[in-house]
């Protein structure tokens, strides 16, 4: 958040690019660098499984897990499980973020509202997430509502905290520029305060999404008839580690994909930021 004042730094329009041969450039592409360790790990794991060092009833080989995922896909049940989990995340994320934006904005803008609401919200925040599960099931029964509500609760707090800190961190000097134009409070919020707190809002959205994925597992473990979390339970009850690991892998892929989407959004929305160039 230190980049609101940018006027005094003389920076070049374009970052300096070191010249490198095309081959070397391809070798050190971030994607390839990032894949080195996972690929080695998978190869070692596969080799150990084939050599019989790791028994298949505890940790099946990577190929067995891929087979399992393909099998699920061929049976057609995979899409249902993935779809319902993604749907729950999406809805819960939307609700949690919306609530956080509305409440967080008021808390950030008005001192009185902060004094009124913030202590209570902080107290709620310290309740362990799983403690909500029985209550939500009791209130909303085992259907979708209780699961979505749980995810929304998980998403709410990081988004809320980041919005509040983003708004209170907006440079007062920028606000004065708006005041000189005779802006109303609403205009100040819309044209200066919200854009200026966008970086922190996006950070909150990303950590909120991470928590959303955690909470969807909790929700689906507790009682569901479909979803990736449900597959975990089935895998445990039927002694099939391949099913458990297959759903873990699917969670990893979905989590990474959704995070990458948000990261892309963040990059597009914050291209104006003065970023640290690392070598």
């Amino acid at each position: 958040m230190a980049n609101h004042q940018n006027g005094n730094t003389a920076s070049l329009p374009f970052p300096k690019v070191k010249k490198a041969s095309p081959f070397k450039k391809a070798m050190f592409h971030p994607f390839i660098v990032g894949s080195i360790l996972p690929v080695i790990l998978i190869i070692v794991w596969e080799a150990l499984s084939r050599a019989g060092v790791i028994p298949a009833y505890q940790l099946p080989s990577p190929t067995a897990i891929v087979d399992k995922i393909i099998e699920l896909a061929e049976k057609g049940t995979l899409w249902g499980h993935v779809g319902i989990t993604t749907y729950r995340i999406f809805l819960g994320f939307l609700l949690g973020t919306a609530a956080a934006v509305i409440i967080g904005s008021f808390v950030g803008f008005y001192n009185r509202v902060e004094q009124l609401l913030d202590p209570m919200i902080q107290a709620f925040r310290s309740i362990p997430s799983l403690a909500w599960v029985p209550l939500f099931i009791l209130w909303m029964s085992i259907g979708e509502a209780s699961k979505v509500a749980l995810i929304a609760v998980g998403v709410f707090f990081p988004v809320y905290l980041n919005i509040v800190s983003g708004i209170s961190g907006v440079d007062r000097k920028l606000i004065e520029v708006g005041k000189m134009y005779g802006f109303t409070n609403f205009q100040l919020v819309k044209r200066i305060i919200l854009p200026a707190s966008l970086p922190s809002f996006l950070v909150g959205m990303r950590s909120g999404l991470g928590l959303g994925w955690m909470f969807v597992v909790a929700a689906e473990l507790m009682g569901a008839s479909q979803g990736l979390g449900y597959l975990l339970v089935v895998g445990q009850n039927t002694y099939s580690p391949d099913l458990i690991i297959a759903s873990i892998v699917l969670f990893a892929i979905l989590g990474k994909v959704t995070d990458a989407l948000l990261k892309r959004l963040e990059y597009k929305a914050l291209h104006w930021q003065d970023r640290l160039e690392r070598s």
Partner: protein
Amino acid sequence: MSLMVKNVTRRFNGNTAVKNISFQTYKGEIVGLLGTSGCGKSTLLRAISGLDEGYEGEVSLNGNAVRNVNTNASFIFQEPRLMPWLTVKDNVSFGLSEKKQEKGLKAERYIELVGLKGYENYYPLELSGGMAQRVAIARALVTSPELLLLDEPFSALDAFTKMQLQDLLLKIWSEYRSTMVLVTHDIDEALYLCDRIIILTGQPGVFKQEFVIEEPKPRRRGSQQVAAYKERILKCLEL
């Protein structure tokens, strides 16, 4: 626009920053508020602008007492204070409420005036300090203000950029003849730009002396007449 400041005093938690300042400007005049740091000249300017409403006394524009921000006045701050998420063009048109096309045309005109044609779509982080301050000047002018308030606008710039922007300011003044109040601690700058220099000294800052600079503008930097004024001002500031 004529500005009248009458017995303005500003206290912060019991500490007086400026005390009993009165002065007046005429239409199209450039008045400098000169003083050592801590004499409350920026405080006074903020009171005039209406950004700070906690002062005692009276500020009137064209004979009407005002206390809050007046949209006929523009403020150029010490820092550019550009919105980092907006391009140069959008920063310049930031305070305009016309239709988009009209806003764009106006912005382009003032961007050209400050010599930044071709940089319309740059973001603030891609600009040098001097360029950013030019954008800030364009942004202040785009509303066609009758009163321009400048708070040490060039003090963060290097000596050469500073001179270029002082010349730019004179060019703008000769074109629009807007009234300006310039807060500065740079005697040469005040002597180069101002028709009248008001010296504030002490803590709390009080009115010390007023110099009317009768040399016509543009003046030559370091000419003998200017040097004579400088000597008198230095004496007045007891330096």
